[in-house]
């Protein structure tokens, strides 16, 4: 079959890329080989637009065992324990088929974690939908939430946290990012690097079907009016099989029969075999007639490009096949030796002993295209709004409007569809600043959070990038955890557009700067580009997944007010920055101007001071002040508990709206018992931390002196109605 220009284009390859393929092979590829190149060279697998920028991220640290480049990152949490975690996007498939797209997103990220030998202990997600008024939003929300729940609940791993947001920028391209966290003994971590010649290459798990063919290529292109036709490229998940695969793999990993192991994720058998061989600088020979198939007459092309789920590729030590096979048979899973490692450095594909394709591994991996795309720097937007000229609103009316808005409403409708308690180690469920998971049979715990701030990133990418890292750091500190490391999921539009590429580069610069300053390295991540439809790009939406360590689960803290007559203090300075705030957006539909400034020195000092107070048991509850500003954070504390707050008017800032709705960074609210106040002030003074008393807890009422007084039940009703009425 002659490879025509049309065929090349249909494989998502550019003309010059095809020329490069021919020169690497010294001949024309056949269709199978072309398919394999397209699977490995697409944006999703090759990171061709992002690679040169990603290398600047700080990826090392005292506690980092494995940084980016493996199935997931690994951090040391003391003793012989390590935590494995990663976040990944499943945006494109979830828009085409929300239930399966989201479900397989969860399944894929779980395999990344247990491939490394870790038992998954928590799932989180960040999901972004279009405007609630958009005709597709309701069904996408329903489908995605049930898909995430359907997979996690069935496999029995608690879904403990996440964020659900709405913005018209995602009308035609939703975001579904899933994060998985696992626990492993430090000496039992498994990697994907192949080792040794003539070792058996084993296929385990589900059978291969025709689903998901070209999934990774689909995920590397913008949507258009033919999007619906892409449904067959979405994979179908089976959490039941994944549960069996999880248990079988962990059972096999108990001894030392596994040399290396890799999940068949995006680009299926192609990417798993190429990655393993490439890392080990080896070749691999596969006999495709041995692949367990779900459908009849599948061609080598289909087998190599299928993205059927719940499959793994394993390289085994000699003579371990029989023993390993028994384990997979016990769990009713396929186990077939399909090939061996070779010294040819080629991917050699045979079908019934006939050579059907042969490609140098390096041509697919390190020789993949690398682009230094043009990008434009974004100027800091000006502050043009005259606050006095805006229509007057009452402070409490604004509060009620924000608390009942889709983005600030209570998310129980979502989280109650997720089993948060299975495995019996969930110390703190979602709804707090971060979730807390105890290490099984130990007293220590980890805190986990996912965060994003697309509005800030759109307004000024480098500030936005810094801000999310700080927000993640604050959320962990607010539950008593010492932040350790992050994973990131970089969701952006079309990188061929210099403005979008600029958003990517500058967000990454911001992330890099903040991570370096806070010693908060990046250990894993994923890039999702081409998020958009017909040239309309989404807002830049990097999502940060943070993990922190809590030495003793007894020391956990949350934002639930513990008693009346306690003092609420605010750590950090309030300048009253309203641009890009929830207040401007919800009350005036204004979304212009710069995002709030991020001062990394203050951020670090304030965070460390809070941890210090926590260590000394001087804090009853803590809460990060983020979107919505001070009054929303205070209301959230009340909403989480049975207590109200009597809030004082500010002493030094005249405009109440700026003071209460400004989104200045680096701030925390702390509930302090009266008799601890002197000690707290002493420590804060010694460390030069700005703080002020903002109110006192009380029964029943949430009030601002001289302005309004409402029963907390009213507040609760306001905050809880949106999802149930939608």
């Amino acid at each position, binding site marked *: 079959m002659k490879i025509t220009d049309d065929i090349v284009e249909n494989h998502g390859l550019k003309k010059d890329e095809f020329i490069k393929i021919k020169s690497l092979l010294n001949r024309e590829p056949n269709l199978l080989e072309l398919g394999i190149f397209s699977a490995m060279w697409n944006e999703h697998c090759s990171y061709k637009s992002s690679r040169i920028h990603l290398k600047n991220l700080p990826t090392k640290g005292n506690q980092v065992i494995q940084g980016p480049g493996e199935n997931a990152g690994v951090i040391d949490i003391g003793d012989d324990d390590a935590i494995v975690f990663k976040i990944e996007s499943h945006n494109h498939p979830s828009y085409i088929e929300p239930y399966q797209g989201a479900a397989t997103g969860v399944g894929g990220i779980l395999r990344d974690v247990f491939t490394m030998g870790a038992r998954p202990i928590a799932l989180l997600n960040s999901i972004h939908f279009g405007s609630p008024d958009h005709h597709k939003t309701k069904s996408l929300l329903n489908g995605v939430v049930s898909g995430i729940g359907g997979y996690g*609940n069935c496999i029995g791993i608690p879904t403990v946290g996440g964020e659900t947001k709405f913005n018209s920028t995602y009308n035609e391209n939703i975001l579904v990012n899933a994060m998985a966290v696992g626990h492993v003994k430090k000496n039992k971590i498994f990697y994907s690097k192949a080792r040794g010649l003539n070792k058996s290459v084993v296929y385990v798990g589900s059978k291969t079907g025709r689903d998901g063919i070209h999934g990774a290529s689909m995920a590397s292109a913008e949507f258009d009016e033919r999007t619906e036709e892409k449904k067959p490229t979405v994979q179908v998940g089976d959490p039941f099989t994944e549960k069996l695969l999880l248990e079988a793999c962990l059972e096999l990993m108990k001894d030392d029969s596994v040399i290396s192991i890799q999940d068949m994720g995006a680009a299926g058998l192609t990417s798993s075999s190429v990655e393993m061989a490439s890392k080990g600088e080896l070749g691999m020979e596969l006999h495709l007639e041995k692949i367990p198939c779900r459908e009849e007459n599948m061609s080598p092309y289909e087998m190599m490009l299928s993205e059927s789920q719940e499959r793994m590729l394993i390289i085994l030590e000699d003579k371990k096949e029989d023993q390993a096979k028994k384990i997979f048979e016990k769990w*009713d899973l396929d186990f077939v030796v399909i090939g061996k490692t070779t010294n040819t450095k080629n991917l050699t594909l045979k079908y019934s002993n006939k050579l059907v394709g042969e490609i140098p591994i390096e041509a697919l991996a390190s020789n993949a295209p690398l682009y230094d795309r043009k990008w434009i720097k974004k100027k800091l937007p000006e502050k043009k709004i005259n606050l006095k000229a805006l229509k007057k609103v009452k402070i409490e009316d604004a509060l009620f409007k924000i608390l009942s808005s889709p983005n600030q409403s209570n998310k129980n409708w979502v989280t109650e569809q997720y089993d948060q308690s299975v495995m019996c180690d969930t110390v703190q469920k979602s709804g707090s600043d971060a979730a807390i998971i105890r290490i099984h049979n130990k007293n220590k715990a980890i805190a986990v959070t996912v965060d994003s701030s697309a509005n800030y990133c759109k307004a000024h990418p480098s500030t936005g990038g810094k801000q999310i890292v700080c927000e993640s750091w604050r959320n962990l500190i607010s539950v008593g955890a010492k932040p350790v490391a992050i994973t990131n999921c970089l969701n952006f539009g079309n990188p061929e557009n210099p403005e979008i590429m600029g958003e990517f580069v500058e967000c990454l610069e911001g992330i890099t700067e903040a991570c370096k300053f806070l010693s908060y390295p990046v250990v894993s991540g994923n890039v999702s580009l081409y998020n958009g439809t017909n040239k309309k790009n989404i807002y830049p939406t990097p999502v940060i997944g943070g993990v922190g360590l809590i030495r003793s689960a007894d020391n956990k803290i949350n934002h639930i007010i513990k008693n009346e007559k306690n003092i609420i203090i605010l750590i950090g300075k309030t300048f009253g920055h309203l641009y890009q705030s929830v207040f401007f957006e919800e009350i005036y539909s204004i979304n212009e101007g710069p995002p709030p400034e991020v001062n990394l020195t203050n951020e670090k000092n304030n965070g460390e001071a809070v941890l210090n107070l926590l260590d000394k048991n001087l804090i009853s509850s803590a809460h990060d002040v983020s979107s919505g500003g001070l009054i929303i954070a205070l209301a959230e504390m009340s909403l989480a508990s049975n207590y109200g707050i009597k809030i004082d008017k500010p002493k030094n800032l005249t405009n109440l709206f700026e003071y209460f709705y400004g989104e200045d960074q680096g701030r925390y609210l702390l509930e302090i018992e009266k008799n601890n106040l002197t000690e707290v002030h002493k420590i804060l003074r010694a460390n030069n931390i700005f703080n002020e008393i903002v109110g006192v807890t009380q029964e029943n009422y949430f009030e601002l002196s001289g302005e309004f007084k409402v029963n907390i039940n009213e507040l609760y009703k306001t905050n809880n109605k949106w999802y149930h009425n939608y």
Partner: protein
Amino acid sequence: MNSSVIVFPGSNCDRDIADALEKHQFKNKMVWHKESELPKSDLIVIPGGFSYGDYLRSGAIAGKSNILKEVVKAADKGCLVLGICNGFQILVETGLLKGALLKNKNLKFLSKDVYVKVVNSKNKFCNKYKENQVLKFNIAHNEGNFFTNPTHLKILEDEGLIAFKYCDSKGNINKENNPNGSLNNIAGIFNENKNILGMMPHPERMVDQIISNHDGVPLFAGLLN
């Protein structure tokens, strides 16, 4: 006390229940579904999860497994059997308990802490609870909406075969506090001899103060009597 936890492909609360049993001094064994003999057991637990992926119907395939035949035999001889969540669904499928568990009334998976009231404490499972005691338990299921025919419902009510009913924090049993649509707010039932208990809430999730509360402890402690 010797206990056995039956493990099916897709069980996922097996480790949780085993931990809870061991914490309460049970000598526990895990029993794989393909086995055809039960170890010596005073208590058999069928744990929660998604046995066989809930394919066909929750609990339907597990109900036909090898080991379940042995469980039925043991139950007939008076061995204590506890089915939690998917375990309850399996017990219903085997006929050890009557009735059916339909999809939740809102047709969605539901996971939250709910209140339940102890309806009958005169049995092996609930003897450490007080009658009408209100407990906070976690539920997590898709199909927990208990349904049965009017005759059976009357028998359940009249003969004290209801273990728990969903209620509010004060013990009021009403529609608002029925999370899944179960008839008469039923959360757990016994067989006639009260040696078998099936319940949707998860007592094994309520044995540790740091995680939740201690409301599940009396159930395990009571079984030791």
